[in-house]
């Protein structure tokens, strides 16, 4: 019933006895709505759209993980867990850090299981930011860092990265943005939306700057497993970085578990303890069903994960080569599942391009400008879509460009 009337304002459906808008806090009012929302609404009204606009895997959660969730429900595991999350899960996560990145965390008090990486990022910012603290955020980046910093009372300081430097932030750039108020640095590599990854050498230079200026680092590594050339370097594995870094990671991308909402944070006891304080008063604990699935994912999920990664890698080459061939300059993304082609040659803004592409050829992409001002002139094309759909989408984009 609500669907049928979705375009009618509520105020016309029900008489109002006050203007509730006035109750909304000024801080919240001042945050612009996510640019992605606008596109979502447009796409909803159309049929037969091929979407490269999705920020999640097209795979359904592997069956053995789903079965573990179902089994846990059957067994009656429906209670709260420890605020930190199930100890067995934290032990497995700790083991993975040791095995994959050679960095040790005590599962008892240095790992916090959260409701998705989004929650982990939010409470990490809230745990470290005092009013007026500045947080350096390299852009383009995932849409929620800046608002989260702002809502925590901090001041996000964007730093632009560019295609010439493969969308990697440099130590020099970070150094230039540091003021007396700078408290923290956000790193998110492999990067959404560009697919950029950092070289170990670059990270080491950044680590020096971080150390000299006594900063804390929030490193969102949720796409870490989706690294195609070489392996991912966990920021906290660098010398002197472990205790001043909060590593965020989760199961959404690596194990196709987005809707199960499960992430985690790892860091020194003090920082994780501060985050846990907020977590216990807000989220209390992550859903137990998802935690049970995650245990299975870490125990037996490597095979399925590697299969998915190999498949993404193939699609990646297909999309990047397709985009470049049609004249959209696209640098080679080495991680995540996004291609980030430049559309400057067309003379359109990213929003114009994405809007017209949707209307004229029914392909949904996300304008790069949504991810920061320096994303203007680019598009985010997710290749987490079946091979057939990718081929069709590329053909449609080509047809669109040829008509311009």
């Amino acid at each position, binding site marked *: 019933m609500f669907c049928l009337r979705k375009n009618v304002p509520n105020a016309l459906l029900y008489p109002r006895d006050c203007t509730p808008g006035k109750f909304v806090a000024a801080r919240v009012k001042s945050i612009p709505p996510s640019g992605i929302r606008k596109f979502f609404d447009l796409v909803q009204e159309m049929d037969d759209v091929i979407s490269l606009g999705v920020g999640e895997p097209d795979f*359904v959660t592997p069956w053995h993980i789903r079965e573990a969730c179902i089994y846990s429900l059957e067994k009656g595991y429906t209670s709260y867990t420890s605020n930190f999350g199930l100890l067995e899960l934290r032990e497995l996560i700790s083991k993975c850090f040791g095995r994959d990145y050679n960095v040790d965390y005590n599962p008892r008090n240095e790992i916090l299981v959260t409701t998705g990486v989004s929650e982990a990022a939010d409470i990490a910012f809230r745990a470290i930011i005092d009013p007026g603290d500045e947080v350096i955020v390299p852009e383009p980046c995932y849409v929620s860092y800046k608002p989260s910093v702002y809502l925590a009372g901090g001041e996000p300081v964007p730093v632009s990265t560019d295609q010439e430097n493969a969308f990697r932030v440099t130590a020099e750039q970070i150094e230039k943005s540091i003021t007396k108020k700078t408290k923290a640095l956000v790193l998110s590599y492999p990067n959404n939306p560009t697919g950029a990854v950092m070289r170990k050498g670059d990270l080491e230079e950044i680590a020096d700057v971080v150390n000299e200026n006594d900063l804390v680092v929030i490193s969102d590594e949720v796409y870490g497993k989706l690294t195609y050339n070489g392996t991912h370097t966990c920021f906290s594995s660098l010398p002197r970085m472990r205790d001043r870094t909060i590593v965020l990671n989760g199961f959404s991308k690596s194990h196709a578990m987005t809707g199960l909402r499960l992430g985690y944070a790892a860091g020194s006891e003090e920082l994780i303890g501060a985050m846990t304080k907020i977590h216990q008063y807000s989220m209390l604990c992550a859903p137990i069903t998802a935690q049970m699935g995650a245990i299975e994912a870490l125990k037996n999920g490597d095979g399925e994960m590697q299969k998915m990664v190999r498949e993404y890698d*193939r699609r990646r080459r297909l999309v990047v080569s397709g985009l470049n061939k049609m004249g959209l300059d696209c640098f080679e993304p080495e991680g995540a599942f996004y291609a980030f082609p430049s559309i400057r040659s067309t003379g359109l803004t990213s929003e114009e391009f994405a809007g017209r592409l949707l209307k004229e050829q029914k392909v949904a992409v996300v304008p790069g400008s949504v991810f920061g001002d320096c994303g203007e002139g680019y598009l985010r094309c997710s290749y987490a879509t079946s091979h057939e759909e990718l081929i069709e989408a590329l053909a449609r984009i080509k047809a669109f460009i040829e008509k311009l």
Partner: protein
Amino acid sequence: MKEILEILESDPRIGPKEIGTMVGITEKEAASKIKEMEKKGIIRKYKTVIDWEKAGEEYVYAIIELKVALRERTGYDAIAERIAKFPEVRSVRLISGDHDLSLTVRGKSMKDVAFFVAEKIATLEQVQGTVTHFVLRTYKEDGDVLFEKERSERLAVSP
């Protein structure tokens, strides 16, 4: 090599041009690698999985288990090869357990299959006994499910 095989196993219609792009080699290299694997018999055949029931064709399948007496100096291979020559026989496998060989037989009707087994298979000198299981329904064939495939119900645009 393995990558190319993985791609072809899931969709044999993908051409060498795309395969080349996907694994990072040229179209020519991909084509010659595929040719080579065809020649070597690594790639045996390109097939289509068909839901015949949906196509309105009535086929009856049966799984037949055989007990086989081995003749002097000839192993299971010889009898298996003989049985495999019948076009009605879709698969022949040597198995462990109570029986020795397991066949899949396809026919137009149950009678068709039953008579084929009785006249052509059971009468073979080395076959000592047969057990016939008629297939009532196939849910998964060669790694492909034959019922409604699951689709991820994703939102069309998400961060």
